[in-house]
């Protein structure tokens, strides 16, 4: 067993005041939007107020109650906040100075967390809008997440693979796995694909399983989007 440095993308939620109801709201909203991706997902609570007397145990409870796991706390913390965190055995995450890596394929879901490195890809400010392009097949067990941008897959997505984007997803191949667009709740996001045969398609947390897909669209070029909160599939021509 060797200790390795790995990069992870983590959801970051800000806390500005001692009133934690906002934190609960925010987490609940995200969970509803993309339940699959966020269930048991690690979350970083970013403290934006170093004078607040925060109840970190309560913060951890709120995170857990909403189906997430608290990976740690980040921010410019005061000494007393740090002491409280140590006492509560909650990790303090520091952002690395290094650039977020371009690594896109995450093998399995993150199982271990190496705190020093964790914050590396935790972005607090929206990145420049850019498309993430993946060339080649996405295989069973692989997961790709395009954070705050669109995702283009130039290849097939196997059954058992999961591709997730905060924006739109374009697949120049066959979608057999799961595609989750608008993962942070963008209802205008769509999934475009050349051959539709998915296990699941989700837009802003509203999903359709392969069972619920109308037969006439299977194997066709399609766009999946939301209309009045309902998934709509149209043939692409």
């Amino acid at each position, binding site marked *: 067993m060797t200790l390795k440095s790995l990069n992870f993308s983590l959801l970051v939620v800000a806390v500005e005041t001692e009133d934690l109801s906002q934190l609960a709201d925010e987490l609940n909203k995200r969970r509803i939007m993309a339940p699959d991706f966020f269930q048991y997902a690690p979350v970083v609570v970013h403290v934006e107020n170093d004078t607040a007397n925060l109840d970190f145990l309560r913060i951890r409870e709120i995170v857990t109650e909403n189906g997430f796991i608290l990976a740690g706390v980040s921010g410019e913390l005061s000494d007393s906040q740090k002491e409280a965190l140590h006492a509560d055995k909650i990790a303090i995450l520091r952002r690395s100075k290094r650039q977020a890596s371009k690594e896109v394929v995450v093998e399995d879901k993150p199982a271990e967390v190496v705190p020093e490195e964790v914050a590396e890809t935790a972005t607090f400010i929206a990145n420049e809008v850019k498309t993430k392009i993946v060339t080649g097949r996405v295989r069973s*067990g692989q997961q790709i997440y395009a954070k705050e941008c669109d995702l283009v897959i130039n290849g097939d997505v196997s*059954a058992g693979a999961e591709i997730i984007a905060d924006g739109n997803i374009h697949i120049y191949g066959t979608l057999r796995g799961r595609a989750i667009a608008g993962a942070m709740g963008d209802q205008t996001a769509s999934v475009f694909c050349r051959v539709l045969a998915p296990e699941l398609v989700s837009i802003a947390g509203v999903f359709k399983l392969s069972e619920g897909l109308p037969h006439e669209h299977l194997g066709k070029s399609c766009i999946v989007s939301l209309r009045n909160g309902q998934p709509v599939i149209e043939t692409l021509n």
Partner: protein
Amino acid sequence: MAKVIVVTSGKGGVGKTTSSAAIGTGLALSGAKTVVIDFDIGLRNLDLIMGCERRVVYDLINVINGEANLQQALVKDKRTPGLFILPASQTRNKDALTKEGVEKVITDLKADGFEYIICDSPAGIEQGAMMALYFADEAIVTTNPEVSSVRDSDRITGMLSSKSLRSEQQLSPVKVHLLITRYCPERVQREEMLSIEDIDDLLGIDLVGVIPESQEVLNASNMGEPVILNTDSDAGKAYQDAVDRLMGIERELRFVKFEKKGFLSRLFGA
């Protein structure tokens, strides 16, 4: 340049060991010094299929732990010159299979002049399977024509591109070959099995061979004689074709079409 080739699949019982034995034998017959390493710690059976079980003294774990040297542990094949087996341990704990240990064994085998190092992987995606594939230059992904086997092959192929030394060091990727085993053209025709085309569609991996379902394979394992040595059998010929393709020789696919037996041959049971 020595080549490390892992024979892997994800799913169990698809024919990895049968294929490792056949392909290892075929490569050695071409004149290349070849070793087949059994990575299936605790479920050793490569030695049985290769018919050398009564000559096993030391094993891979002994070598890794420094309890025996490589020369002591390598079992020389009696039939095929230039072919050796490095057996798995039947009794040891799998955790003994460390990256450093396996690396040392492979380095020593290369220094010893081995041209092909075939790693017979255990099923699954645990430590043993990961160690078998970690140092691979090429992989033979073994698949049966059924959905669950194909899914697992897809998974292991993903791991070859993310969990191997070549991927970690960003060298040119592991060259992956698809070997379809237990193919039964008649059942494909009846749509009870996936066809070669279906599998290609799902996996997109270059095909190195298609081995038909054959009683000869069972007979060969029972006799402890790799089926490739049975040059009259379809399975033996199909393995020889696969070995040739591995070495870059073009071979037409055989035994993949269903031919209905004619009236007369049915009558005479040919």
